[in-house]
């Protein structure tokens, strides 16, 4: 007596699960509109992250388009000093005569790149140590935990200041190194936690029973399930690094001859722009920093939803954005189902 072949039917489970499966991302295979992977659609249809993506893209676009947008060199005296924002100089000029707009636009490049590289370094260290600790257990785990705790306990900014004060060289590369080596602790702790919980999941044990080796398990089973958490960690350290870098540069620990948001602020403070009432010297770089960080915070709302499916909520707003993103046809296809 044979077995009737299992039908290709839909998942059983509570009715609620049939609607939003545990890790189910909206399948993009059956739609006729734009072909976007599920995670991009999710980021774009979450109101907050969509706003964040738009603003951040704008800022990155501005930085990339610097040669077109800001024709003046940020390091040359191009106009009368101390001008408030006007037709020629949208953000005014410094008390030396530099173009604030150029400084902000060109400075974006440095600030963003430094922070991005620092975030890459920091996340790499955090992931390596966190996963190693979780998977090895025993004394390796204890040793890494001790190291993590030390770095967590020491307040980051004072640590950065002290380290910077001791290192004679200044500049973006040093900044990346210093930031990367000090900001990894928080995320390492989180990655370790998640790797620990994944390590005892049945599918990891099943891979072990199937004969998968340690690195195979870490690389094929554990890390792919942590991608969105790694991404969220990266974004977090990214905007943290923007702030820290700006802070260090403001205090004079950056290379004051380079152009970046923090350095502009340094000069604004150095030249007593506040006292002189030249608000444009520090408000615009400050707003740039705040806007970028806020945009990334908002993006992380969406990334959080990716890593934790339980946060996903069906939203009415999704329909409008769905339509904008994937086209009317896709929306109709979705509704017709």
């Amino acid at each position: 007596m044979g077995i009737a072949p299992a039908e290709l039917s839909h998942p059983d489970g509570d009715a609620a699960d049939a609607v939003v499966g545990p890790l189910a991302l909206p399948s993009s295979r059956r739609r006729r509109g734009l072909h976007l992977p599920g995670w991009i659609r999710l980021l774009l249809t979450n109101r907050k992250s969509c706003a964040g993506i738009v603003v951040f893209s704008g800022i990155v676009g501005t930085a990339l388009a610097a040669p077109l947008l800001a024709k003046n060199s940020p390091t040359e005296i191009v106009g009368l000093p101390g001008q408030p924002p006007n037709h020629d100089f949208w953000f005014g000029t410094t008390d030396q005569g530099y173009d604030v707009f150029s400084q902000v636009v060109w400075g974006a490049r440095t600030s963003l790149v430094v922070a991005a590289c620092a975030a890459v370094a920091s996340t790499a260290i955090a992931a390596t140590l966190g996963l190693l600790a979780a998977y090895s257990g025993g004394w390796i785990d204890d040793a890494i935990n001790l190291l993590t705790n030390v770095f967590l306990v020491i307040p980051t900014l004072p640590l950065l200041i002290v380290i910077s004060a001791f290192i004679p060289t200044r500049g973006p590369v040093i900044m990346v190194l210093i930031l990367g080596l000090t900001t990894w602790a928080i995320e390492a702790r989180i990655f370790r936690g998640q790797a620990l919980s994944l390590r005892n999941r049945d599918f990891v044990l099943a891979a072990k029973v199937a004969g998968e080796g340690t690195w195979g398990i870490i690389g094929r089973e554990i890390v792919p399930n942590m991608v969105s958490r790694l991404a969220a960690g990266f974004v977090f350290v990214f905007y943290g690094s923007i702030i820290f870098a700006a802070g260090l540069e403001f205090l004079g620990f950056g290379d004051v001859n380079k152009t970046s948001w923090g350095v502009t602020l340094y000069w604004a403070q150095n030249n007593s722009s506040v006292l002189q009432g030249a608000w444009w010297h520090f408000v615009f770089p400050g707003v740039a920093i705040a806007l970028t960080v806020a945009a990334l915070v908002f993006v992380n709302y969406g990334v959080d939803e990716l890593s934790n499916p339980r946060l996903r909520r069906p939203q009415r707003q999704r329909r409008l954005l769905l339509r904008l993103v994937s086209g009317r046809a896709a929306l109709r296809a979705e509704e017709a189902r």
Partner: protein
Amino acid sequence: MSSTLEVEGLTKHFAAGGARLFAGRSKVHAVDDVSFTLRPGTITALVGESGSGKSTVARILARLYEPTAGTVVFEGLDATRWARRKAILRYRSQVQMIFQDPFGSLNPVKTIAHHLERPLRIHRVVPRDRVDERVHELLETVGLVPAKAIAPKYPHELSGGQRQRVAIARALAVEPRVILADEPTSMLDVSIRIGILNLMLKLKEDRDLAFLYVTHDLASARYVADEMLVMYAGQIVERGPTEEVLQNPLHPYTRLLLSAVPDPRAGLRFEALSVRRSHSAVDPVAGCRFVARCPLAIGVCSDRTPELVEARPAQAARCHVTAPAPELLHA
């Protein structure tokens, strides 16, 4: 090489939290002195309630835990001795496992094909260019058709029954001789369970496999198993051919289980049950572990742990009253 898996004196103690002053750490006796044999073409049921240690036994056999004592002999070697990777890999190619949770045992971000490819590649079961073909064959063997459509899917796109079939296919990929099934149907819908059980029967017959079927469900154990082992508090308290154990149970715990199972065919009834008192597997004292709940307990039951004694041909129980050791009879 013999395809039997012989388990002898398997013991596993876990450290219970909290060391007591002057007494050393408490130990949970999850598994104590468990012995049995898995033979080709036989399904052996390991029956017990949660906390009885049955899942731990299966995991030790799968080399996920290291036993505190005892041996697991397969192909002449003791599999519990941590050996070189080559020996471990050889063991894994012969002894496979199916887990209880059909969703949890599949990686949610990998396709079904990935799950079946990995063991094929790791153990080099087929040459590289035939891997896809073999994946489809495996899916067809477990009844997942059309295989080409199922292979690229993700676990959440399949139903619970289908996922469990994928888990079985993965276990079959390495062409094992022994399959350890840890409650493979308890998280599935009732009407789907029979399909999985029938698949197990078919595989046993077609491929002469040895199965260890861990379950708390006596009825399904009766449906598939040839041999039955009953576990309580980490020990095997009864073993024998399934039908014998179920129709003429020796051990009072087996009798208690049988009386508690809802069985509509037995007619409507409310059975008398013994009073419940919890047993503790933490630092158990000498004597039978069932003594607090046993309606047949006599004096010696609190003093001496009974041995597993063969009271009838092929049927043994761990009970001073129903399966007394020969020397006690003459005492």
